[in-house]
């Protein structure tokens, strides 16, 4: 008989007590069990970034992690209403038309929110010329750091503009 496990997930500051098959990914738990369908399933293999959420403030692919591994973690999705960075990015994506069909947008915005935190924490990227210096936000840095998020409509130029605009 298949195992089911009790797990309490904390998503956008709300607790959800769930009974899950351990095979349930965090993405499927969000979409199918909590009805937070903002996080999208694109490839389901960590290649497209549409499922990106923040876990304890860090961006991850929610399709490549099991929900039962996240008891006690703080999960933030595109539905978070009191996350100022996400709110700012949402406004900037609208202002700069950072999408066409919109399917990848929740992942783009959560990824950008995590990326701005990483920059603020001084974390380098492949585009960072000097590893000893504090990385600065630039077009090259944004493009490299957002390479885990694919946009099938290729709205990339406006996604970069929106992120530049939303950056503190």
């Amino acid at each position: 008989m298949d195992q089911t496990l009790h797990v309490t997930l904390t998503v956008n500051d709300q607790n959800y007590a769930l009974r899950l098959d351990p095979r349930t990914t965090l993405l499927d738990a969000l979409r199918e069990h909590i009805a937070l369908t903002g996080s999208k399933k694109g490839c389901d293999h960590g290649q497209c970034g549409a499922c990106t959420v923040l876990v304890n403030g860090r961006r991850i692919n929610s399709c490549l992690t099991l929900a039962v591994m996240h008891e006690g973690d703080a999960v933030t999705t595109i539905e978070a209403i009191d996350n100022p960075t996400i709110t700012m990015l949402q406004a900037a994506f609208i202002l700069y038309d950072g999408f066409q069909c919109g399917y990848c947008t929740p992942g783009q915005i959560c990824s950008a929110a995590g990326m701005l935190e990483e920059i603020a924490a001084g974390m380098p990227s492949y585009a960072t010329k000097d590893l000893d210096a504090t990385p600065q936000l630039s077009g090259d840095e944004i493009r490299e750091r957002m390479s885990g998020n694919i946009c099938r409509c290729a709205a990339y130029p406006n996604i970069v503009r929106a992120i530049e605009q939303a950056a503190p």
Partner: protein
Amino acid sequence: MKSFTFSRATNANAATHAASNGHDTKFIAGGTNLLDLMKLQVEGPDALIDINHIGLDSIEDTPDGGLEIGALVRNADLAADARVRKIYPVLSRALLAGASPQLRNKATTGGNLLQRTRCYYFYDTTKPCNKRAPGSGCAALAGFNRIHAVLGTSESCIASHPSDMAIAMRLLDATVETLKPDGSTAAIAIADLHKLPGETPEQETILERGELITKVILPPPTPGKQVYRKVRDRASYAFALVSVAAIIDKNGAAKMAFGGIGAKPWRVESADDLHDADEIADAVLAGAIGHGSNDFKIPLTRRTIRAVLRDARKG
């Protein structure tokens, strides 16, 4: 995905003990490679042991001026560590050249060393693959093999090792420490961790059932300029066709390790004494065999060696 039982370990000894029960039990840390393979039923463990809460997630100085890296340190944190950036920039660069930021936030030091090949046929359960299904054959030999290895391969398997991080660690002469289910520990030179495919490509490392990587020790680096140069089909978020990790000293002598071309992280120590790029390439590529679509990797490796040395010597 095949069903499995899930448990969370609270310390390393409990994890290894639980993994020695005779079933197909796997540790899960970042899970970014394992869950991908489980969804495709390339992997189908009976049990998963979550090792994210057993500690082993810090980076400590060693008395001789090196670093001791916990197996659960995330790739993103290792790349960003101030000591790694200063003393081992080749490791930071290699890590940052791999995967995407989301994956690096989850992927761990131990897991990265144990990640599986991205051979298309290993991933496709409708095709023969000696690594996935021993004895079934190798569809890559006469198939699409643009990403495959040219060194260390066999008639059974031509898969390439996919890691960037492991190439830098191979260059830096890392030691991998493990814990076995009986409580004993082992220190394994990274050169000895991965096995060549031979006739048993399903055996990728010398680790025993239930043996857990606990840390990676880096000795102080040899002096010189550290470089990681990765050649790939896209500018970001792609595996290496050829990658070179190198330390070039002030006399122009180079130590190098290679990704993308070998069945395991590739290094030819005897080339360390050579200065001329083509002599180095001759030594490194001795015995290289192309399989059609990947023939280009042999001259590409030679040109990448030249480029690395030319740029380093320019200063």
